[in-house]
C-alpha cells in the first residue's frame, strides 16, 4: 500500500526531478502532460484507498471505546479496573488517532493537489509537486 509521499517520489524520480541539485550541468527535463495525467490517476486511487482506510480506523476507534466502557462495567467499577481500562484505552486511542491524523493530512493534501494540478502548466505542476515533496522531507528529517 503506497503513501502519498511514495507516489510523489516515484513521479519525481521518473522525470529526473529527484536528482540532487548540481553546481552546473543540465537541469532536469520538463514534465509531460501524460505524466501529470498518470499522477492524477494514482492520486485518485490513493484518495479512494485512504477514504476506505479512514473509515476502518474510525470503526476501530468506536470499537475501542465500546470495549473500554464494557470492561469498566464488567470489572464492577473497581478503581483498579477503571484505571487499567482507562490507561489501556487511552494508549490504544492515541495510536489510532495518530495514524488517522497522518491519513487525514494525506487526504487533505491529495484533495488540494487534485484540485490545483489541472490548472497549472506541466512545468509549474512539477514545481508544485517538487515543493510539496521536499517540504515534507524537510519537515520529517532533522538537520544533522
Amino acid at each position, binding site marked *: 500500500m503506497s503513501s502519498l509521499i511514495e507516489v510523489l517520489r516515484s513521479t519525481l524520480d521518473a522525470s529526473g*526531478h529527484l536528482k*540532487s*541539485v*548540481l*553546481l*552546473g*550541468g543540465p*537541469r532536469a527535463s520538463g514534465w509531460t502532460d501524460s505524466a501529470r495525467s498518470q499522477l492524477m490517476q494514482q492520486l485518485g486511487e490513493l484518495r479512494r484507498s485512504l477514504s476506505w482506510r479512514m473509515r476502518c480506523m474510525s470503526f476501530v476507534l468506536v470499537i475501542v471505546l465500546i470495549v473500554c466502557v464494557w470492561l469498566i462495567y464488567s470489572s464492577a467499577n473497581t478503581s483498579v479496573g477503571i484505571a487499567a481500562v482507562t490507561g489501556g484505552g487511552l494508549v490504544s486511542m492515541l495510536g489510532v488517532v495518530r495514524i488517522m491524523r497522518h491519513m487525514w493530512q494525506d487526504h487533505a493534501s491529495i484533495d488540494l493537489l487534485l484540485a490545483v494540478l489541472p490548472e497549472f502548466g506541466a512545468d509549474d505542476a512539477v*514545481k508544485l509537486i*517538487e*515543493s*510539496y*515533496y*521536499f*517540504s515534507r*522531507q*524537510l519537515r520529517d528529517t532533522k*538537520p*544533522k
Partner: protein
Amino acid sequence: MSERPGQERVKPKDCAIAVALPSSFERFQADRSALKKDFVRNCCTTWAKYQHDVVRPMASAVRDAESYGVAVFSDVTFERFIDLCKDEEFKVVILFAHWTERSIEFSDGLRSAEEIDDHIPSSTTSVLDLCVCCPEALANARAVRAGFDTRYNESLVTPRIWFAFYRFLFRFLSTYDISYFKAFGLTVDYLSGKEIA
C-alpha cells in the same frame, strides 16, 4: 626550495570558505527574477528543493567549519572573492559557486574566467579550491596558475555531498599537522573506506 602552498601545513583557521550561492530565501527569491543570474533560474527553481539540497547541508557544514575556526563568507560577491584571494591571512580559499559555460556566478552576477583572472593576484602563495562544476577554464587561467595551487572538480558537483566532504576535511586538518592536499587525500580515502595510517 620552498614548499608549494598545497604542501604547506595548514590549520582550519588558515582556511576561508567563500559561498557564492544564495543562503537565504530572500536571496533565492531575488535570484529567481535576476536576469544576470543563472543558477536558481535554471538549475533549481523551487525553494523547498534548494533548501533540502543546498541550504540545510550548507548550514550544517558552516556550523561545523566555524567550530574549527574556519572563516566562512556567505553570499560572496566578485569583489569579496578577489579580496579573499589577496588576503594573506588565508592560506586556503575554498569557493562554492555555480559554473556556466565560461563564467562563475557570484552573488552580484556572472563573471567570466578571463575577468576573474585579470583581477586575481598572481603573486600569492595560497591554495585555491574551486568547488565548482568543471571550471577548467578558470583553473588553467594564467594568474590562477601562477599564484595558486589549484584544485578543482572535473565532474559535476553535488553540494550535498561536498558540504559533507569538507566537514571531514576540516576535522582532519584540525586533528593532524598536515598540508591541505594531504588532508584532502585523507578525506577521500576515509570516505571511500580505505584504512588511514
